[in-house]
């Protein structure tokens, strides 16, 4: 009994150490691509994505200082634009998928309804995202859809899919970095949540959430690598 208990303890200790090591490794790794989940239509190659429309990305970063998180509105906008552009480049170079022009709200000036349509569709994705994130593997079962309302966006007829990009991250001030060296805490990071939705019926075809550790506003190469890894399973367009 005592021996068994001691064995159990030792095994538990080894397991804990190993888990700790893996977690530590993941935390310090410069970049890490997490799961990619493909709809059966994509994994069985019943549907091929050749042309996509990328919706305006919404990537939000904050500066974590000793006095709490501070907004980085301008930097968030720059980063959103950079991520959006880079996703297009990865699609084109790695997957031979063409990016078509998006129905950007700014291009719909004077047309409130078109602007609202885009805004409401972005909101609809925001609503669906937490549900996908709760059970990402259900994308493989074809559980998630945004409905045929996608057609209301009136995209280019050749568009096969729509890409929605969300992201959140934090940058640390030097004070906070020093503080974290001493007591630990979340490092600077950027987590992206990307969904690819069928442009004809709204089904979620792919969900991927690449994450990179490092300053999200400056880590350009890491971002590109994280995105390349994030779309690794997506079949090429042609």
């Amino acid at each position: 009994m005592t021996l068994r208990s001691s064995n159990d303890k030792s095994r538990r200790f080894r397991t804990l150490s190993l888990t700790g090591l893996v977690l530590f490794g993941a935390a310090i790794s410069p970049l890490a691509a997490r799961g990619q989940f493909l709809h059966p239509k994509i994994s069985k190659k019943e549907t091929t994505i050749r042309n996509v429309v990328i919706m305006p990305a919404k990537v939000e970063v904050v500066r974590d200082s000793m006095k709490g998180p501070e907004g980085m509105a301008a930097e968030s906008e720059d980063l959103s634009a950079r991520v959006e552009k880079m996703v297009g480049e990865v699609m084109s170079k790695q997957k031979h998928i063409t990016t078509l022009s998006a129905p950007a709200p700014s291009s719909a000036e004077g047309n409130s309804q078109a602007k609202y349509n885009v805004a409401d569709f972005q909101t609809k994705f925001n609503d669906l995202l937490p549900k996908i994130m709760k059970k990402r593997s259900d994308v493989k079962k074809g559980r998630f859809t945004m409905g045929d309302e996608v057609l209301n966006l009136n995209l280019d007829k050749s568009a096969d899919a729509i890409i929605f990009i969300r992201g959140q991250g934090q940058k640390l001030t030097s004070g906070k970095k020093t503080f974290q060296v001493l007591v630990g805490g979340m490092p600077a990071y950027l987590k992206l949540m990307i969904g690819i939705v069928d442009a004809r019926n709204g089904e979620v075809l792919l969900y991927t959430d690449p994450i990179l550790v490092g300053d999200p506003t400056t880590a350009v190469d890491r971002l590109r690598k994280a995105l390349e890894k994030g779309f690794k399973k997506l079949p090429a367009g042609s």
Partner: protein
Amino acid sequence: MKTFSQRKLLAATLFLCVGLGVLTPAAFSQKKKAPAEAVPPPVNEEFKFGKVDLELLDQVDLLDRRFERDGLVLEGEATNAYLERIGNSLVPKGLTLEHVKWKFRALRDPQPNAFALPNGSIYVTTGLMSLLENESQLASVLAHELTHVMRRHTYLQNRSNRRKFLTMNIMAAVGAYAPGGVVGAVITIVTTIAPFIVTATIYGYSRDLEREADLKGIDMMISAEYPPEEMVKVMKLLNKDIEGEEIRLFYNDHPALQERINYLSSYLGARADKITPQMELNRETAAYFHGMEPVMRHDIQLSISAGRFRSAVYLAQRLVDFHADSENVFCLAEAYRTLGPRSPQLTEGESTNSAKKEAAKKREKRTVEEEERELLAKPAGQENSKAHQQKAEELYLRALSVGEPEPVAHRGLGMLYEKLSRTNDAISEYEKYVELAPMAVDHERIQKRIEALRRPPQ
């Protein structure tokens, strides 16, 4: 290190303290009765801008631009002009404040709320505008928010938060309350620009500052000839729990509403007795509803999109009771069709705190379609669904028979019949719609539906 439940508790406490944006019920809990003379002057003249304040100002200017750019601001000229008129009538004449430019806008958001940014931009959601009953109530909301700007509450709260380190936990608070819908988009944007504003402007300031805004708001209402007791009525309206949202837990657990009403009533005292003819005019519901009809219709559609089906039925019914034209009857039909197997009001079982908590958890996990399937598996859900489908059909037909019929009613009927597997009827209604509205934004969508219905089953 805080556990998840501790963080939830912290979030709950934060909410409890700051309440819901405009007229936070947390302020009800003020134990002392404030004598009228305790109310400070309308403008905080001692306030001097520091570096931190100017940084915040830059961020909120960006916030304003993002609301506009992201399609969250309602671009209705008449609505904006109406808000500007009421807002400007409340601002003391000749008042100029450093770094403040007054702007009053409606935010496309079905959650009833309002907030002021320190640069003078005041936002009222379409959800709140639709819930109110007259112009005076809207004025009370604006007066309350104006006080936050005039007394520089956002800057003061920012400084205080930074001192207290409170913002460290704001993200946890926001994370604990993920309302979804357009309000989610607003909160996401605000969180990025200035995280503390989420608790301060969206959820409410500290009790003292909210109380100050209430009392100063009343003075401003009287000066602009709005009956001040309408502020108390707004609080009662805000306390309506149509959706059974978890946020109401904080009201239910807190014996605060009566206290807030008490201190306001006590402050009102003789002030409420002097009713002028202009005040009576401002209390007119019909005039308000007449001006608000387009906003209300817009909000009903937003409510449906955000899954706030009960609110949609409630607001649409009020609208039809006021003016039963084709457009309004169509809104009610849409609200009933999308309500589906849900009950129109919260049932007794759904009204308890634990049931609301459970419902909030489920909302995070299930899609609307899954929720409907689950409800339809029960007899009550089937009964509701049948009754609402009948009601929706009657209303669509009525919308097509009154005044200038709305072609969208054909689309609604088509969707209803498609759900009922009445394929030929659905095709016929869809065809009428595409014929009558060839330029509609959903033309292609409906054409595709017709094609799919015509396709022989495989």
